[in-house]
């Protein structure tokens, strides 16, 4: 099983990395944003864009009800991602330890926000408001959250076995996989998510930076303040 999971992991990871490398090259070859010649990204513009990204500021303006769910979801996801770094870093850096309590909260907030987002889109808004692809992602995320919570509170897996296995993956020393069925389930869902991650995770911050740059470079254009 360890070998199967390891091969699965490397395949999915390669697929993920290669996909984004191709995208990065394509994006770099595209026409530059509509800016005046000689203008470059300045620190204030970047910081402004960073706040847009971190706070999902545009969504807050357009739909504050949905924003609450989306921001909670994305913030919880980041916290849980950081906390999960303890499985692939040895020794784990202090910020990973500092994430312990926030991650315990985020582990509950993440599925709660998914339920909230789903309910908002299905109940409050019209049915086609949510795309089938996002339905699939929401489902996968929910299954991942539930399996993670089950592992934490109901059917705990041996954390030492898990770390041994995951460290083996990142150091290319394939080992035995933990025996926990919950872990296997959680891990496989993670692999499926890895290859189906929405492209906006990487492209969206860039378009948000580009939007701020456009505003700064063409102030008299005032496209979207």
């Amino acid at each position: 099983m360890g070998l199967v999971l390891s091969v699965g992991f490397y395949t999915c990871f390669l697929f993920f990395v290669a996909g984004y490398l191709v995208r990065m090259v394509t994006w770099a070859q595209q026409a530059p944003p509509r800016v005046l010649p000689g203008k470059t990204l300045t620190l204030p513009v970047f910081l402004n864009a960073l706040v847009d990204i971190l706070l999902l500021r545009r969504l807050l303006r357009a739909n504050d009800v949905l924003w609450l769910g989306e921001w909670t979801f994305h913030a919880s996801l980041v916290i849980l991602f950081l906390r999960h770094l303890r499985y692939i870093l040895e020794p784990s850096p202090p910020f990973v330890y500092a994430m312990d309590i926030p991650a315990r909260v985020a582990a509950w907030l993440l599925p709660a926000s998914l339920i909230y987002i789903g309910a908002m889109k299905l109940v409050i808004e019209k049915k086609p408001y949510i795309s089938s692809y996002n339905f699939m992602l929401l489902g996968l995320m929910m299954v991942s959250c539930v399996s993670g919570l089950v592992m934490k509170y109901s059917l705990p897996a041996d954390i030492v076995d898990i770390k041994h296995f995951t460290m083996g993956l990142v150091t290319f020393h394939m080992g035995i996989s933990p025996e926990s069925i919950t872990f296997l389930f959680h891990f496989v869902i993670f692999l499926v998510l890895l290859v189906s991650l929405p492209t906006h995770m990487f492209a969206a911050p860039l378009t948000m930076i580009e939007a701020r740059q456009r505003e700064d470079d063409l102030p008299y254009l005032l496209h979207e303040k």
Partner: protein
Amino acid sequence: MEMEACARCGECLAWCPAYAQDPRESICSRGKLGSLKRIVTSGLNGEEMKEFLEGLYECSACGQCHIVCPVRINTHELWERARESLVKAGIPQPEEQIKHLTAIRECNNSFAKPQTERGLWAETAWRAGLLKEPVRLWKEYQAPVLYFAGCTASFDPAMQTVAVQSARLLQEAGVDFSILGPDEPCCASKLRRMGDPGFADAAQQRADLFLRSGIGRIIVSCAGCFKGLHSDYAGILPASVEVLHLTEYLDRLIREGNLTPTRNVPMKVTYHDPCHLGRHNQIYREPRNILHAIPGLSLIEMRRHGPFSLCCGMGGGLKLAKPEIQKKMSAARIRQAEETGAEAIVTPCQTCQMGLMTGTEATSSGLKVYHITEMLIRSVCPEADRAHIEKAFTETETG
């Protein structure tokens, strides 16, 4: 990258005024971005391509999707670029749009009329006693300010009122201005809206004309022309040529005490933000300042206003491609205006005015549709109100 940035959240779908009237995925930005991505990667089959093209042109390029997009995809510019790329690839615009664009290219105005008729509104108005003094042509007198009326206010008999009232208000404020008259070109912004590859060259020609003529400040009364000269010409027309929308200029003149609305206009009105003025150029405050300056006039905002203003459907060539959708969109806007209890809807764009009038007809609404100049004229010099102008112009035509 923009195609990859879409989070498929559906926010565009919830706000799109065209999708509200024709709820198909291919109409909203999410659907169009998905199709564009597939065109680049795997391609679309005949039926899918047909649906994509329908969505691409069933769009007023109002920019609402861009405003609500959480990841700020520059959608309205993307649609314009997509239209242009398709035209270059041999997939033309809808037939009615092609006719319109041909008129602009061949006649230098969207009405396919002789350019010699372009400045006639000024002569007629002067002869009818609607102006304080004759409006001079730029080639005879290079005033500090150029008034740019645009095709609609110059040629459309129903909208020439806007040109006359704009000129009269500038005269009332003591502004020294002239017009290009028969030399006034079409701003060519519609070429860009509808994806005509000739836009850049056309814009350069216009910019050269302005520079050659020594024009330093242009006052534009049409929101579409303003978007053209102010935004689309960015990087083409030097910043030394100041382009202002009429409402910006009138607001300034009122604040500086050069123009004083004195007469009472006891009306309850609501204000419609034109997309090209509001969302595309951030002019929200100035027209409202003008309305607030008019004694007796009270302004009630609609549920959707400012950056979230509901488009009347007149932009982006939608009216030409899908007139039935435009009618439904403007009807929806009129219903929003009626919700406020106002007796009239006021807009600073003659194209929106025409679009909204389609809506009042479609809904059999008693709501009046006015251009903002009409409100100001009633307070400053009521002898040049719409009724007087129409009467005078009709008499001139028949006489």
